[in-house]
């Protein structure tokens, strides 16, 4: 038992073990909640809530009323849970710390300035969310959740995601690729 706890507290698990755990979570979410593990949709729900508070007329449309309802949905709760889970995971391995720009590889490539990290994170996240909106999901909601139901969309998405990801990092890293 104590070795099990020791294994649990490790900062990094084998990706296969973590993958098996996620697979079980994916099955359970369909089984107990009849839902898929989607993370990117929650942004639209939250944006809708904010939008309806600020400019109710502009947000009174089909999209924010029915397709992505502006309310606290299952997906929003899932997102909150993800944050809690990540936090608990970091606590369990005693690796939790607050950083504003923590990744050494990032600093080596883009430079040490924090504003760059934040600026590019902001810009990149817009690109991410936009792409996810067009494709109908993100890595979790479409690639993993769709893939486990054998939806063709998931595999088209994975292929496209890797193609442009590889190309983008080739451009960013150039000789250091």
């Amino acid at each position, binding site marked *: 038992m104590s070795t099990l706890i020791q294994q649990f507290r490790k900062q990094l698990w084998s990706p296969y073990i*973590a993958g098996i755990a996620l697979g079980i979570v994916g099955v359970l979410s369909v089984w107990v909640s009849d839902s898929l593990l989607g993370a990117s949709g929650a942004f639209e729900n939250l944006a809708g809530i904010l939008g309806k508070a600020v400019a109710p007329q502009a947000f009174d449309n089909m999209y924010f009323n029915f397709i992505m309802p502006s309310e606290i949905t299952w997906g929003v709760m899932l997102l909150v*849970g*993800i944050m809690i889970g990540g936090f608990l995971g970091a606590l369990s391995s005693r690796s939790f710390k607050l950083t504003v720009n923590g990744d050494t590889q990032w600093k080596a490539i883009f430079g040490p300035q924090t504003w760059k990290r934040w600026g590019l994170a902001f810009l*990149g996240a817009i690109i991410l969310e936009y792409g996810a909106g067009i494709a109908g999901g993100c890595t979790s909601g479409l690639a993993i959740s769709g893939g486990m139901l054998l939806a063709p969309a998931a595999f088209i998405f994975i292929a496209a995601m*890797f193609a442009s990801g590889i190309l983008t990092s080739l451009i960013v890293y150039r000789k250091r690729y």
Partner: protein
Amino acid sequence: MTNMILALVLGAFFGLTLNKAGLTRYSKIVNVFRFTDMTVLKFMMTALIVSMAGLYGLRELGLITFPNIPATYIAGNAIGGLIFGVGMALTGY
């Protein structure tokens, strides 16, 4: 209401696996695109295999019905994926 609490708990386990696989780090995400660290693929594909087997098995047993399967519209999925990949490689999310 119960469903909302379930979402919170499922999310917590989801976040825990992401944290323990190291996928909360920029380097882990971007290095799969450089073929220097295949954690993302190992993690994703293991999860896919386990959940595929679990879901189809449970459906055969008549214990679950599938929810709405994400829609396939080839151009949208592909273009969305291409845009998504750019953001993923830039931010490491």
